[in-house]
């Protein structure tokens, strides 16, 4: 058996995808530990490691669903989802796909977005200083790209309020939505900004490539724009270029 096949055999045994050919491995000298138990040390560690990585990123979802239901979803995810990246931090991000539509899925999506934003690539924020000298007409035609480390989200339920209560240690209750959010990493911290529905619509249009004039589709939006712009720039909503 060649080198590659030897590695594959051990890997498949460790990840529970196939039984290993025990003849591949050496019986130990002076130690009673059997080969199956030796392989199980690795196999047990594999499952525990992946489950722990997922659980660490979804504390509020675990509280909302209850340990039994949450662990069942995690077990299904780990069994169905091999890790395909050296960075274990990215592994848990796909969990929301396995959660049934409803408040639990909203909460899973929110917690996954926080992880994704935390690990997303850096980008410099657009600041008021960057706009110095740009006239109003030119500014109105500017594309404004949301930060690389950001996610624009809309939920039917109210997972953000639930998460806030959960993190503060208060009794968390899932409320009725909708909630509109921008999750953005700015000054090295992940922030959750609650948005007005109209503001969410404008940011959605901007994220789709419309310029400011196109994105401000209503008089109400135009009226709110000065207030929104101040916050967007202060809180680092957009990439510098």
């Amino acid at each position, binding site marked *: 058996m060649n080198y*590659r096949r030897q*590695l594959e055999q051990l890997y498949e045994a460790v990840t529970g995808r196939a039984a290993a050919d025990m003849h591949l491995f050496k019986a130990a000298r002076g*130690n009673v*530990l059997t080969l199956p138990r030796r392989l199980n040390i690795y196999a047990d560690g594999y499952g525990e490691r992946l489950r722990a990585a997922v659980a660490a990123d979804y504390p509020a979802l675990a509280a909302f669903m209850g340990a039994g239901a949450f662990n069942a979803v995690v077990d299904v995810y780990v069994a169905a989802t091999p890790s395909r990246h*050296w960075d274990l931090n990215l592994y848990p991000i796909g969990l929301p796909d396995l959660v049934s539509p409803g408040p639990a899925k909203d909460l899973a999506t929110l917690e996954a977005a926080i992880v994704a934003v935390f690990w997303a690539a850096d980008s410099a924020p657009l600041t008021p200083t960057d706009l110095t000298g740009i006239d109003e007409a030119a500014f109105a035609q500017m594309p404004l790209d949301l930060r690389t480390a950001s996610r624009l989200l809309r939920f039917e339920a109210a997972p953000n309020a639930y998460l806030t209560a959960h993190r503060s240690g208060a009794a968390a209750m899932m409320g009725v939505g909708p909630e509109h959010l921008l999750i953005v990493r700015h000054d090295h911290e992940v922030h959750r900004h609650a948005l007005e529905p109209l503001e969410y619509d404008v940011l959605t249009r901007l994220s789709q490539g419309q310029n400011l004039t196109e994105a401000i589709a209503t008089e109400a939006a135009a009226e709110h724009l000065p207030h929104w712009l101040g916050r967007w720039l202060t809180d680092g909503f957009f990439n510098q270029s």
Partner: protein
Amino acid sequence: MMSSSHLGYGLGLRRPHYGHFLNERPRSVDWLEIISDNYIRAHAGYHDMLCDLRTDYPIVMHGVGLSIGTTDALDGDYLSALKGLADKLEAAWVSDHLCFTGINGQNSHDLLPIPYTEEALKHLIPRIHQVQAVLGRELVLENASTYVEFDGASLSEAEFFAELHARTGCGILLDINNVHVSSFNHGWDARAYIDAVPSAAIKQYHLAGHTDHGDYLFDTHNAPVADPVWALYDYARSVHGDRATLIEWDADIPAFEVLEAELDKVRAR
């Protein structure tokens, strides 16, 4: 007198002690080792923190994701990110493990053993050269704790390391706890292992705690260094001399003072 590569006695930089290092800059710690994988994709805030600490401490980068033994192609993005951080921090050296972590595009996130055969040597030697060329510096490889051995090995683990060093110039991070754990688990002679490692290759020693499950030892890094490991460390130093030595503690991380006391034990030997 310490050689230029003998940095003294160091600790692994772990999250619970970020504040202590940033605010107190304890002089009881000569140098810091970081887990490379935790930082190479991290945002600039982490890099700023490491650069700040670098003004007071030499930094060694220790990875777990290189997977030098796998038959998959080396990950160019991983290597260039590793080099970028190593250059930024002027890392004293860059290490990882003699193992494979995954194959065919999948990853176990574990340090899995490889067979110690001529075929494996032929596979690893050009890969180590490739890594060293990208990094522009020597790669240092650590012996991992293992629980299973491939049959048909033509070399012992220590002999395999010696061959890799001879044919690539790579360094060795000799983890004394791992020698003890693997020797117990496989019935090896731990002192013979130490004897077989080439002195010139040893860049660093690791010391850590393990868990005794009765019929096997498990490398947990969650406890003080055990007495047999201290004895083996003394033996390694008597054979190979002093080297930069690190206390590794990765789980159930205690107060800084506990780690400092472990470092004091190293210094007192």
